[in-house]
């Protein structure tokens, strides 16, 4: 399923990688942020929404090392270049990610930033949307968000252009250690 997901997601301009352990994923993530010039200045900061990946990690160290912030506000998100969140599910047949986005913080980091980094437990891979919808109770999941590639438009002369109102890059990081293998 992972290979199918990767093919489909890359076909819609998402960037996909996979790591066995959380520490490998973290190392990659910090390296990525640094390479991309993360800084505590407007339009250069990174904002990380609360998620299980962060459990057991020292946020202070992360703040110092990678310049990331964890207090997600509307203003903070509109200033951030990077938004980091954890998506619960990945749909192999369309290369989509899915998340219970009821908490507004999850939506702010993934919709306002220009680069969205999505951490995904490999065990969250599902074959398709029907298998997602049977797992979700809408009453408990008020805002179910599915994301397939970066924001796009073809409204001017039918020319595909990436990055309108949402992120212009979507980096998907699978982490096996976050739960099972698929």
């Amino acid at each position, binding site marked *: 399923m992972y290979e199918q997901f990767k093919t489909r997601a890359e076909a819609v301009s998402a960037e996909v990688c996979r790591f066995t352990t959380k520490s490998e994923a973290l190392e990659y993530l910090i390296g990525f942020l640094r390479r991309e010039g993360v800084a505590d200045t407007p339009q250069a900061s990174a904002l990380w929404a609360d998620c299980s990946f962060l459990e057991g990690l020292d946020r202070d160290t992360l703040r110092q090392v990678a310049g990331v912030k964890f207090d997600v506000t*509307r203003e903070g998100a509109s200033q951030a270049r990077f938004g980091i969140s954890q998506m619960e599910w990945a749909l192999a047949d*369309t290369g989509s990610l899915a998340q219970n986005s009821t908490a507004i913080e999850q939506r702010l980091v993934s919709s306002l930033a220009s680069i969205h980094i999505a951490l995904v437990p490999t065990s969250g891979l599902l074959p398709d949307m029907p298998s997602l*919808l049977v797992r979700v109770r809408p009453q408990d999941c008020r805002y*179910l968000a599915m994301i397939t590639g970066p924001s796009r438009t073809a409204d001017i002369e039918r020319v595909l252009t990436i990055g309108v109102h*949402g992120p212009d890059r979507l980096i998907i990081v699978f982490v096996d250690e976050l739960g099972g293998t698929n």
Partner: protein
Amino acid sequence: MGNEFKESIYRAVNNANLTGALAKFSEAYKSNRAKAYEGIDFEELRGRIAELKSYAASHLDELSAQFQQQAEACGAKVFRTSDPAKVREYILKVAQDNNVKTIVKSKSMATEEIHLNPYLEKAGIAVGETDLGEWIIQLAGQTPSHMVMPAIHMTKEEVSDLFSKEVNERLTSDIPRLVKVAREKLRPTFLAADMGISGGNIAVAETGSIVLMTNEGNARLVTSLPRIHIALVGIEKLIEKFADVATILKALPRSATAQLLTSYVSIITGPTPNPDGSMKDMHIILMDNRRSEMAADPKFKQALQCIRCASCLNVCPIFRLVGGHVFGKVYTGGIGTILTAWFDELKKSEDIQGLCIQCGACKDVCPGKIDIPDLIMEIRRRLVQQQGVPLLQKTIYAVVNNRKLFHGMLRAASVAGRPFTSGKFIRHLPLFLADLTDGRSLPAIAEEPFRDRFSRIKQPKCKEKAAFYAGCLIDFAYPEMGEALIRILNKAGIEVLFPLDQTCCGAPARYNGAYEVAASNATDNITALLREDVSYVISACPTCTVALEHDFISIFESLGLTERLPQARLLAAKTVDFSTLVKKLVDEGRLSLKEGQKLGKITYHDSCHLKRALKVSEQPRELLTKAGYELAEMFECDTCCGMGGSYSLKLPEISAPILQRKLKNIKETGAPTVAMDCPGCVMQIRGGMDQDGAAIKVRHTVELLAEQVK
């Protein structure tokens, strides 16, 4: 058709930006769509969609009530109304009660339907469209020209002019840069807005959820940033079960833009927290606006199976020429014609229903399995019922309905037309008919029609007999096609009868909504064709074949003439088109084609009625290949040639460019001959080639095969 309407067509077909962009898109759409559906059983999928949407259409009240109960249980406020005015008032009241100054909107056709923006703006509220295409349209002060791609008619230069004014900076027409400008310009609007208004792609009764899809991500911002969210949803968007969302989402993006899924799908069930920690003030408006009436109409109920993908626009040979503006201000294209007739009024669809050439391309791709051409015919029929047939047409039908008079006039035309005839084509018609020969020569009426030649044709006596239904074109313009058909069937041991009482198949009357005339034609033909016991009733005109096989039955059904149905069904069972019967005879070994022939390249044009109504496309190809032709397929081989019976006479300004495309596609194959199974297409394409001057032979399959039977 009104002059204003004709002028809007003239403007559209002469707008190179528009026709260029639409043509480019529609050409790519076909193959992209096929790719998006790879590995999916489309018929099975659309069967399920049609079923679940049809169920919903039969239970609109129950599902609306259930939706309301569920959504309210989750904390949303639900307002149900049938009146567009009440929708506008409700939204304005919510805005005023909450001191709303600015509103951001994501794309919603329902708000266009009720002309919401000008209403709110008049009340002093700033309304910002955020979908890029809608924003462009709003800045330009225009209306959408396509349901999914509202600004498809505009060039990047026009967009850059608009944006330059908006940001007070001279911008180039670099598209990625223009998109960035839109992002930067709209971001503060999103952040400042007090209210977000969205539509809803789906509303789920079982859970009170609404589903929103966008590629740009604007619906996520519209539903997340402002403290108030109002979703305006037409009740035709209701479905019963949450699990069925996946069924619709499997088809909608694939059919709309050939995507597997849009970038963003949000399923929202009740209010969610705002960024400041408060809960969203969430309102859902379920709007009826004649949808329940539509559901109660046995014929039009199926239009509620629409999922608003606009694929009927994308494959329409007319839409790609004229774009959306000719259709009106809101819903456009095939389904738009139907929705306009209902949500606006029947009268409003008077002109636009005439745009449909009845080629059936939309019916083939509709994921809601809606018979759009048939519903447009029904609109035509009701218009005729309401307003009567125009005098000129009435005169024509009176003639067509009287076989002797009609045939007498056709004979007279062969004499009267002579001064204007040179060779096989009428070159100079009297001035008032000048429009009709624009880009196409019309055939001369045959000096001796088929019905007069028939008695002289020597046939072997055979046990098996077939009745030949010629149709007006073969009888009076192309009698040689009829002679060729008899030659072929005789070789297979079938004797051909020609019942002289046969008359017009009724298609011209039916396609113009005059069902009574068509029913009378049907009755006369049934009597004539069933008089003798024959194995087959064969026709070499697909339009006539469809009439004999399907339309007679449906005309009787829609007029309640049930007593005539058994005979109509009997005729339908015996009716067969030329290529299907000949293919069968060849397969059975009753007919042989000369062997080892090398006849060179040929290209084949699929006639609309043969391919899409009779589902015949391989038979003529196999026969021609077997005869020794080397098939070179043309681009868009099954796209309409623009003939459409009297369509080419009524809307020559649309028919002509469609024909030009067809001629170009034929010429590009390099084949010296193009074959087809319809005398109407022969008339259109042969006439076009004649004026074009290209040395390409335009032949009916029957003529080509008659030369190759052993």
